[in-house]
């Protein structure tokens, strides 16, 4: 606990480019960028596959394989290949990390919608796209949000590793602390990342409350 007081009580940690606010902002910036790219790819793809049922097996296998890819290795390789100091390549491993949970949950969500409900929507005269967007998506929303939440939490926590290849973010405190054996910084950074991950988790639970229709919540 003394370490925590030392880390958070130090005024030098609260300002400048190495300060907690600046590092937090950096961390959020590239986490958000990676998360948004992944969501833009995985949500529409998952909805399409769940709706049409085409390519489902391939996607599930690929998503499982992607889970095994070690983010640290991918990060190091991509940055070496692209040249040290570039920011965009760092996003690639994070995007790869975020896609599987979003894709699988979106697909499972859309596919798992009660067949009666789907038939009723067609019976009421809705077209394929309308059925997907107006009936299947709202009903599948809890699972889609679950996928997004898992992905967001993983991206925020894994983005810590990006500090290893020279990027900023909260991981800087941990990596630099380990390198210089300043354990107060290591623990302080660890607490910050953990708090951020929990905040993201909580934000998505709130979003779930707001976005999911009360009717859908009832039948759950």
């Amino acid at each position, binding site marked *: 606990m003394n370490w925590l007081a030392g880390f958070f009580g130090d005024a030098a940690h609260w300002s400048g480019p190495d300060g907690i606010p600046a590092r937090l902002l950096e961390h959020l910036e590239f986490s958000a960028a990676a998360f948004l790219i992944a969501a833009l790819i995985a949500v529409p793809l998952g909805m399409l596959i769940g709706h049409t049922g085409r390519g489902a097996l391939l996607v599930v296998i690929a998503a499982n394989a992607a889970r095994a890819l*070690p983010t640290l290795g991918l990060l*190091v390789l991509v940055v070496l290949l692209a040249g040290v100091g570039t920011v965009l390549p760092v996003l690639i491993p994070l995007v790869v990390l975020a896609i599987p949970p979003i894709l699988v949950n979106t697909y499972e969500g859309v596919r798992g919608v009660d067949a009666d409900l789907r038939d009723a929507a067609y019976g009421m005269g809705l077209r394929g796209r309308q059925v997907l967007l107006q009936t299947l998506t709202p009903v599948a929303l809890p699972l889609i949000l679950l996928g997004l939440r898992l992905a967001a939490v993983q991206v925020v926590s894994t983005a810590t590793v990006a500090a290893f290849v020279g990027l900023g973010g909260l991981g800087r405190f941990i990596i630099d602390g380990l390198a210089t054996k300043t354990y107060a910084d290591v623990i302080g950074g660890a607490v910050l990342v953990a708090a951020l991950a929990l905040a993201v988790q909580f934000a998505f639970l709130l979003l779930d409350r707001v976005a999911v229709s009360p009717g859908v919540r009832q039948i759950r």
Partner: protein
Amino acid sequence: MTDEPLVRWDWIARNWANGGPTAISALLENHIVMAFLPVLFGLVVALPLGLACVRWRWLYQPTAALMNVTYSLPSLVLFSIFLSVTGLTRSTVVIPLTFFALAVLIPAVVDGLASVPDPVRQSAVAMGFRPARRLLRVELPVAVPVVLAGLRVATVSSISLVSVGALIGQGGLGNLFIDGWQRQFYTPIVVGIALIVLLAVLADGLLVLAQRLLTPWSRARRTA
């Protein structure tokens, strides 16, 4: 850097088993131990805990919440916290990974037992099974597919997460990433990624096989 090939096979041949602690085969062995121990410990703890959560429903909510919190903690964060407790040993990686495995396995055990259809349970009671025997002979075998699905996720992510331990000096094959990075040398990195993915695919395949062997009735039903 431009004319450096992605993989230099002679480097692999020289470093596969050079006898030292940084030989690829030594790292692989280390990696396997550090990846499987957490899953094993996790399963041993998750089974009784999951059973308790089913027996006393009120236990499940707080347990699930706690596991949810654990799962959202970055592995590097837990590693660095445990570094101050257990020092530079394998435990610093194995203990946090056990928590991650638990976060996946406890819900799997609970969901698995919940997936046992009521008629099956009642038939077992009617056939004279006592609770303990009913659990062992009927409920757990029926729960196997759901539990094994959790076990597959836990195993694959454990294999992949061990590599992060390289940042605190205990990462099995992850050490190859650090080595490659420091020397700006692609080969160790590619070898590390390939071996980790291979290991994960192999372990996953074995678990799928185990599921087929443990649930012969699911195949019988399909062919009938």
